[in-house]
């Protein structure tokens, strides 16, 4: 009975088995090196499919950079890594004009941002000036220099890592930049079992594979673009559109919040929910997809009131309350 209904439901819908196979291959490649961090890997894949940038936050030493670097390696695209430092200038990221005495002209030398996957390591080590240089490129996927617009190639994904703000020598990211990240993923310490697995690998002389060569590309840029197009075909019922709008709208009126989420957050939640559903082999979004992604989409876009912050409430707590408050559309 159920199968019949499923067949009817899937009529004229995109087949997401290819997408699942591709993402499973990526996961398998990553698992050669990374122990645990399943949520991080899944969310990175969702963001890649939903054309979003990811901010990964966690204490040092929990494989944030390594995971991002390896994920970039699984896709056959241009990759660049920028280590953000306090003295980094916008031109170090975007590029600069270089004078050629022979031709008596200035040529634009492209910066490391011109790549398909850009890993910005420790993004909060650079001051606001350098961070602001990413505004245009992250949102519009092009760089304007000397009045000329330089388009970046697709796909373009920024994976940024940062240590928690409490760490010494870091700068808080501007709200405008935070809003440009689709997800903020909080990476936790590995579980006891995962830590034991890491130690066993080390103890048995197998050493953790830090050599990137063991991870092979399993997806081309064109394939990734095709998967992204498939994600766009995921069905999203109007009731769920309203549900997303209600959740994001509630952040703007909630008494515990000083700053609510922007419409960009609604769009991010919409696109990521589609990618999340596709990743699970479904051709439609359910309220569960929206609920699961709401914290990672909203947590960096909202600001708590000082009173709530003093009470020890976190952004995740408020998001949870909002989700519980709004009726799931049925």
């Amino acid at each position, binding site marked *: *009975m159920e199968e019949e209904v499923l067949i009817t439901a899937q009529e004229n819908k995109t087949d997401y088995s290819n997408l699942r196979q591709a993402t499973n291959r990526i996961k398998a490649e990553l698992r050669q090196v990374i122990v645990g961090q399943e949520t991080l890997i899944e969310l990175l894949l969702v963001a890649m499919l939903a054309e979003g940038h990811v901010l990964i936050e966690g204490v040092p030493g929990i494989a944030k950079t390594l995971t991002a670097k390896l994920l970039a390696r699984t896709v056959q695209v241009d990759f660049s890594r920028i280590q953000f430092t306090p003295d980094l200038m916008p031109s170090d990221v975007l590029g600069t004009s270089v004078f050629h005495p022979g031709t008596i002209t200035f040529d634009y030398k492209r910066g490391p941002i011109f790549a398909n996957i850009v890993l910005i390591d420790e993004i909060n080590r650079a001051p606001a000036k350098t961070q602001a240089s990413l505004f245009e490129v992250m949102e519009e996927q092009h760089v304007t220099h000397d009045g000329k617009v330089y388009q970046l190639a697709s796909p373009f994904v920024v994976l940024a890592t940062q240590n928690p703000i409490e760490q010494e020598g870091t700068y808080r990211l501007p709200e405008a930049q935070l809003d440009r990240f689709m997800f903020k993923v909080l990476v936790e310490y590995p579980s006891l079992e995962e830590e034991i697995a890491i130690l066993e690998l080390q103890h048995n002389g197998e050493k953790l594979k830090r050599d990137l060569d063991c991870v092979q590309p399993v997806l081309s840029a064109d394939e990734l673009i095709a998967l992204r197009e498939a994600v766009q075909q995921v069905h999203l*019922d109007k009731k769920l559109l309203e549900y997303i709008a209600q959740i994001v709208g509630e952040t703007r009126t909630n008494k515990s919040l000083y700053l609510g989420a922007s419409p960009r957050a609604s769009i991010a939640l919409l696109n990521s929910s589609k990618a999340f559903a596709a990743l699970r082999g*479904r051709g*439609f979004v359910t*309220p569960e997809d929206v609920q699961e992604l709401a914290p990672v989409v909203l947590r960096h876009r909202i600001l708590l009131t000082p009173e709530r912050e003093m*009470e020890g*409430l976190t952004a995740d707590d408020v998001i949870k309350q909002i989700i*519980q408050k709004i009726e*799931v559309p*049925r």
Partner: protein
Amino acid sequence: MTAILLRMKETFKQPYTFILILCLLLGFGPATYAQSKDSIPASQVPVTVRQFDPEQVEELRSDKDFQYFEEVKPDKTFLEKVWNKFTRWLSKVFYSTKSGPVWEYLIYAFIVAGIIFIIVKLLRMDMTNLFSRKSIESEMAYEVYEENIHEMDIRSLIEEAIGQRDFRKAIRLHYLQSLKNLTDHGFILWKPGKTNRSYINEIKAPELRREFEQLTSMFEYVWYGGAALGDELFTSARAEFILFDKQIKQYA
């Protein structure tokens, strides 16, 4: 004084010194001669006596800067006297040797409490939620929802949907009916924010859970997936829901 007299006596004993002093006195004598009154010529300029401007004088008198008399404060008012007595009594009570340091601590406590109160008022903090999270949650109370499965007449709505050949809606209503039955028999706790998967996880009876999981998948494909249902499929799906509702009663 005696020492000075003795020194003078010794000085006058020496003849040269005495002569020298005498010469000096006689030599300066002519210089100290004063002129007589007749030698000063009388002034020919007529003397005019200037009078003070009375208005200006009055103005200066009334000027505050020239008021040199201090105002004597009047005697203390009745209220001031009462206040003074009260403060004296307070200090007597608090600082008496019998009462010990307890009162002193109490004063400090009052001062600290006062400072905290001022800070709280300035920051407009809501301190009612300081010691409990429950009150915060209660602020996020559930709103009035458009639909309440416990108040809806689901059976008649199902018949209405079937009559309109809106099978998707009918499946949805059947699913709501199942949720209502599960709640009524204590298998799940109905809350608006819960997802279908949350309800599946709440059901402890494995058979019932498995059945409900299948129905949930079907409902999701039809309702969220936008699938169209034909007569046959709907009849079959409806039978599944009716069977499940019977099972709930059996397990209850």
